[in-house]
């Protein structure tokens, strides 16, 4: 609850125009991109500086008001859904690229900068910021850091975590801390930078970040490999890696996904095959040519029915854009799309694809699968209808089995979307009670009053682990 006197103190900090609490304004920050999660905040606040964030956080800590930092609300784990009410903290005023340092190859940004804007800005200078979540045209760097977002280039270049060198953050007691630096080496104390990346707003509010940039690859080539056998496509992924090639992108799309994506993008994707792999390599021209040729051979050895090279950059970009639209395009099938983020070691990808299809059959569900197969990260997606309660129960049971299978194969419940509220009940399956206990100790020491994005990561109750009948 935010009393009138407390509201007055918030507006004293940010100004009347930057505090909103009408029912319409609260409603539009009651959700993110996760289906079936909605909860009203008590207010929405838009600070203009780190100092203002610090004052807000102090006040919240004093009065036990939950804080939910929110970028563009595109996350898929209910990470920014204000399930305990409180304040949603926006960064629409803190959205500047502060510096691109061409000597140290770093960029320093405020959290509200849109990912694609940063990418364009650095690419204009011949530099490269690799993390490219599918939502990058609207997602923010602050959101990416909090969720430790991945993307299509994760296989070769890693994820957001691998590009965060330094952070400025406001702790729940209002302290402003700076971690890391423009440094290639830095072992001064605990690595708070890494702790904060992916902490989903549960430990601190990130107010500034210094990111690592790399030289932009000289060339890039893109191809599509077509399959009539899904498992053969998945097997190809493992074969490419075991052939000692690390492509920049290695994406998997099954037939139902291809159909909806083509329906939206209309770029002539093959819809008469069971699966495709979207493969890219970047680097010096001769290396790219050699790798592409070798990968083509591997595809054909693994029963690809054909391999098509993109003729132009425009064509290649159209393919990537189409791939990024996959999840939203799947919403064409049914009113509700629920996707998961199960990730397994790359060698196990074919087994995982097979298991997903068996589970879909057993529960009589339409599960479409796409994902970053090259890094073992799949997005099995159920097309369903939240109003059909009986089917929703089957969906939940099926996903529990998928999680369990992924863990049995040495994998994890989430590769890049985060735990949030959605996967919190399953976190213990991956970490065990001791692992959860260790994380809770960290949470409690930073945030004893539990004001930072409460209910996220840690569930009130863990799900009982399902027993898989084999």
């Amino acid at each position, binding site marked *: 609850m935010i009393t009138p006197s407390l509201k007055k103190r918030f507006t004293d900090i940010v100004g009347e125009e930057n505090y909103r609490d*009408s*029912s*319409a*304004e609260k*409603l*539009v*920050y*009651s*959700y*993110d*991109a996760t*289906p079936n999660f*909605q909860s*009203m905040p008590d207010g929405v606040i838009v600070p203009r500086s780190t100092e203002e964030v610090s004052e807000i956080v102090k006040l919240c800590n004093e009065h036990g008001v939950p804080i939910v930092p929110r970028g*563009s*609300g*595109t996350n898929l784990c209910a990470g920014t859904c204000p399930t305990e009410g409180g304040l949603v903290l926006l960064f*629409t*005023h803190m*959205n500047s690229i502060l510096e691109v340092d061409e000597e140290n190859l770093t960029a320093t940004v405020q959290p509200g900068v*849109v990912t694609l804007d940063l990418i364009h800005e650095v690419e204009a200078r011949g530099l490269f910021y690799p993390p490219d979540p599918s*939502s990058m*045209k*609207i*997602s923010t760097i602050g959101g990416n850091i909090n969720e430790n977002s991945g993307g299509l280039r994760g296989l070769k270049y890693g994820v957001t975590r691998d590009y965060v060198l330094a952070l400025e953050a406001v702790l729940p007691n209002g302290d402003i801390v700076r971690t890391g630096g423009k440094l290639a080496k830095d072992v001064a104390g605990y690595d708070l930078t890494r702790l904060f990346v992916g902490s989903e707003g549960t430990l601190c509010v990130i107010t500034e970040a210094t990111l690592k940039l790399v030289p932009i690859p000289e060339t890039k080539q893109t191809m599509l490999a077509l399959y009539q056998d899904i498992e053969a496509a998945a097997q190809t992924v493992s074969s490419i890696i075991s052939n000692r090639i690390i492509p920049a992108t290695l994406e998997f799309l099954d037939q139902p996904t291809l159909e909806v*994506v083509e*329906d*939206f993008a209309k770029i002539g994707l093959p819809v008469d095959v069971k699966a495709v792999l979207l493969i890219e390599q970047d680097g010096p021209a001769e290396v790219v040519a050699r790798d592409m040729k070798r990968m083509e051979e591997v595809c054909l050895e693994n029963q690809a029915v054909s391999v098509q090279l993109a003729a132009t950059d425009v064509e290649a970009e159209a393919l990537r854009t189409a791939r990024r*639209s*996959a*999840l*939203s*395009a799947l*919403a*064409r099938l049914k*009113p*509700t*799309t629920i996707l998961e983020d199960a990730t397994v070691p790359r060698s196990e990808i074919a087994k995982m694809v097979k298991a997903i299809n068996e589970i879909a059959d057993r529960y009589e569900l339409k599960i479409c699968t796409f994902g970053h197969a090259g890094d073992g990260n799949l997005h099995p997606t159920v097309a369903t*209808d*939240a109003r059909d309660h009986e089917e929703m129960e089957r969906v939940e049971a099926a996903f529990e089995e998928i999680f369990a299978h992924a863990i049995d194969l040495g994998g994890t419940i989430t590769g890049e979307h985060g735990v949030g509220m959605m996967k919190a009940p399953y976190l213990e399956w991956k970490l065990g009670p001791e692992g959860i206990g260790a994380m809770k100790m960290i949470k409690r020491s930073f945030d004893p009053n539990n004001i930072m994005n409460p209910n996220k990561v840690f569930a009130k109750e863990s799900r009982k682990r399902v027993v898989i009948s084999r």
Partner: protein
Amino acid sequence: MTTTKERQQIKHEFQERMDQDELLNCMRCGFCLPSCPTYIESGFKESHSPRGRIALMKAVVDGVIEPDEDVERSLDLCLGCRACEPVCPSGVNYGHLLEEARDIINQNKKHSLPVRVLRKTVFEGFFPHPGRMRMLTSLLGIYQRSGLQKAAHASGVMKLFPDSMATMERVLPQVPRLKDMKNRPNALFSIGVARKKVAFFSGCLMDTMFLETNNATTKLLQLAGCDIVIPEQQTCCGALHGHSGEKASAKDLAKKNIAAFEDSDVDYIITNAGGCGAFLVDYDHLLKDEPEWKERAIRFKNKIKDISSILVELEFHKKKNLRTDAQRITYQDSCHLRNVQRTFMEPRLLLQSIEGAEYKEMKQADHCCGSAGIYNIVESEMSMKILDHKMENAEATHAVTIVTANPGCLLQMKLGIEREGLSHKMRAVHIVDFLLEAVEE
């Protein structure tokens, strides 16, 4: 202000009439946000984004919030440019949701007396009546020709009007005389071998204030090899009504138009106003609850084609020598031509084939100019913000001619040029006028 009783009724009708599947189809991915002009100009407020507006509509349906002033404000501030639709991977028909919501609110709200009179006059008194539209336009003509306009400018009386309206008054075209508006042909024949038979949708504003552009359009069609019929019984397309929550009137107009065109055995029905064309191709949706009209509406909509599209199909740009004075030109998309009719390559193709014209693509040419029907009058502040950004991008092209494909966009670009003080070095034209110039020179 809405009363509690009005709100109850609005809520009830939201639950009855809003398409729940369509609302659920939005999976809130946010991919629409960067395409939304009001989201950007409002300083990235979710309440002024398509995702936010759909969430608000759904929340009213679900009974989570009341349809209060803020909800109404959010819907009012939407341009209806529908730029969110082509970028929506889920394929949400946002325009349909918006139109339904606006109709519900408008029909259940008691407007103040002056607003009621104004709405009745505009929506019922003028647009559906070609004769009255001609009279109104000719009054404007008398104002322009009699010296009254000069006197008004000299007296400073225009300063009493809001800035954008006063400027708009200056940029209105020199309108035709009453007798020219009255004596319209109802058939024209191809110059050379006839290759297609088309009907021409002349529109209400286009056939009065922009009569010259209509003449240029039929001339181009003749040159391209079209026999043309211009059914006399046709009327206003109803877009203004539909977008402003006057759905019943829009339906009446739609039926009149369908009836007016269905006896003419033509390949296409040609439009030269992106806004009208987009509304015409949506007639089947507009009449979806009237089964006896459904088939007729579908037959009608399947024939709708923009002038640029048929010219490309008939290879007009390849068969005619198009030439103009050496100049740099650019193109501002008509939102509805692009986002609803999905016609955007054709105008560019035509313009790029004109000798002497150096085509330069404008940054964000696909973003709305802020005209949006009567939006620039009723939401002047937001409209001018959008226009200022548009003019920055237009100036950056260093083009001397901005080509448009819809009367509203044309006036808005003229307004922008006037506001920026660029009228000595920049002009805005409708694509058909520019093309005809290029043929005749």
